[in-house]
């Protein structure tokens, strides 16, 4: 089985789900003939035509709002936001509308919609092509938040998202689009939500991560192994629902947890992981928790030395591993 890229996993999922269910449509900017700025929809316009792949006006609130309406009228839209940084104009439609619709109608109107967005830094994108937005949206009740870390998961989780009857924010680590490679089984099916994956078992401590930081965590664990440290790496895969049981089980096994995320540290997603561990696995802890995250400055700057200084990577994780191991 030849390795594929993460973006191929995305494209295959879209293609197969569109072939499988004609209610699936895609809405976004530059997704038609252009095939998306990252080519996630390449070839789909030619295959499914303008009634399934809809180039939208440059207006994110409407991309989501129109998606909600279409979802409530029998379709299953996949809305593409070109960069996660540009989802902000749609925050109202996502948080106040899509996420609350099912609850506010007492379960009468589900909103089966996926919002895809490339996120994260390291591509020289500066403040507005580098943001991590998962904490903001994981906090919104009624919205599922998914981040794949492997090509197979990209495909399997996106399939699940499209078939799920809830609004789902599907965040794709854009730096990993072509950098993260791996096998995708021919018959790759849906990957269930709410199941974290121990991607590297270990005994000394647990690193909790997702997306690009999971990729780096594996590298850091590899380096740590050379120093005799046996690090367990857990890939969360879905941030909401979170596999709390899986997270706690790992931490209970190892007694130490490093929480790695690329977003700004303060009130980031890792804070929730820390809180749950400090509430529910307190007695199993042999050391303080440790978060490795981006500083609380706006986002990764453009200039390469600044970008490098800003973003946490394998080295920062390895440093954290050493600190925790020493404790």
């Amino acid at each position, binding site marked *: 089985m030849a390795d594929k890229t993460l973006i191929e996993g995305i494209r295959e999922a879209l293609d197969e789900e569109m072939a499988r269910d004609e209610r699936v449509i895609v809405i976004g900017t530059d997704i038609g003939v252009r095939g998306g700025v990252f080519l996630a929809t390449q070839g789909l316009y030619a295959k499914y035509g303008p009634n399934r792949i809809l180039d939208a006006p440059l207006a994110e609130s409407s991309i989501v709002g129109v998606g909600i309406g279409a979802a*409530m009228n029998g379709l299953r839209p996949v809305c593409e936001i070109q960069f996660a940084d540009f989802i902000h104009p749609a925050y109202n439609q996502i948080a106040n509308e899509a996420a609350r619709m099912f609850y506010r109608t007492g379960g009468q109107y589900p909103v089966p919609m996926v919002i895809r967005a490339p996120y994260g830094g390291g591509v020289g994108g500066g403040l507005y092509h580098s943001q991590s937005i998962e904490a903001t949206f994981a906090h919104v009740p009624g919205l599922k938040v998914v981040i794949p870390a492997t090509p197979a998961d990209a495909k399997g989780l996106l399939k699940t998202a499209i078939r799920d009857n*809830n609004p789902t924010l599907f965040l794709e680590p854009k730096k990993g689009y072509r950098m993260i490679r791996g096998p995708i089984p021919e018959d790759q099916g849906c990957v269930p939500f709410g199941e974290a994956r121990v991607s590297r078992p270990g005994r000394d401590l647990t690193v909790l991560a997702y997306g690009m930081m999971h990729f780096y965590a594996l590298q850091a664990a590899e380096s740590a192994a050379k120093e005799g440290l046996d690090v367990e790496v857990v890939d969360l895969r879905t941030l909401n629902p979170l596999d709390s049981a899986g997270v706690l089980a790992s931490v209970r096994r190892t007694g130490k947890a490093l929480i790695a995320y690329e977003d700004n540290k303060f009130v980031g997603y890792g804070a929730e992981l820390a809180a749950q561990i400090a509430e529910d696995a307190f007695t199993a802890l042999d050391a303080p928790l440790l978060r490795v995250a981006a500083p609380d400055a706006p986002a990764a700057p453009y200039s390469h030395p600044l970008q490098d200084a800003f973003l946490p990577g394998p080295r920062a994780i390895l440093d954290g591993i050493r600190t925790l191991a020493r404790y």
Partner: protein
Amino acid sequence: MSDTTPSAEMLADMYALAVRARKLDERCWILHRQGKIGFHISGMGHEAAQVAVTFAMRRGHDLLHPYYRDLAMVLGCGMPMADVLLGSFGRAGDPSSGGRQMPNHYCYKPGNVFSVSSPVGTQLPQAAGLALAEQLRGGDRVVVTCIGEGSTSEGDFHEALIWAGVRKLPMVVVVENNEYAISVPMKLQMAIERVSDRAGGYGVRGVSVDGLDLLASYQAAREAVDLARSGGGTTLLEVRVARLTPHSSDDNDSVYRPAAEKAALKLKDPLPKLRAQLIAMGALSEVAAREIEERALSEVDAAHRQAEAAPYPPEAWALGPVFAGEEA
């Protein structure tokens, strides 16, 4: 034109709907003053226009994404009075939200009425999405959505109208212009005389009509709905109405509305005018009108009794359902 002229029977039905909405609305104000319901936001003064639009639709077939003042429209789409009041009382049987949303945040699935939100303007892109789905599948249902004139200042209005124009969506956007957004007068929302002047910028049809005049409104609405159904795209239909009440039960409009203006509001009330007009036209007799009014009142009484006696929702409804269960 002639084939869209309402029959005498239909005119009587229209009057009945307007009266039903008015009587129920009045009851809500009383219930609020009595401290029995926590909030009310009113459609008084908007009824003629709302009835006109509702009758222009194929009710139960076409889709309605209304806003909080659209009491006459949701009643017209089949929502029972008691269901409205169950919402006002926050009772379990409230079909809009099971007591979760504030009163007047209507949702009535059997009548194809979509859920009213509080953040104004959000319904417009959603309505465009409803219409888009309809168009893509080749359906013949028209989407009617409503909004206040103040709320057209929100970016969502603009974005939805762009979709409407670009894709010639089967939609009617009804702007209920009562010249106020709470206390903010229309001239602080727009430097134009008519909201329908905004249509040109979107390549959609714009029409303004006296929304206090039911017959004129019906003609305008009917044309808009028919046009949408026949593939002619969206109409931005402004109905010029009057807000006969404060913004809501939380508002005191004498702070910002001149006394003379308030006093003159009575003259704008579309209902007495409609009544006289229909009687003059012979569409209604004085007796029939009175019968309609009495029937509406008994309906309100019965609904009131039913809703007030209904049980509150179980506490568990506070917690969910948040997520829809899985299905393939």
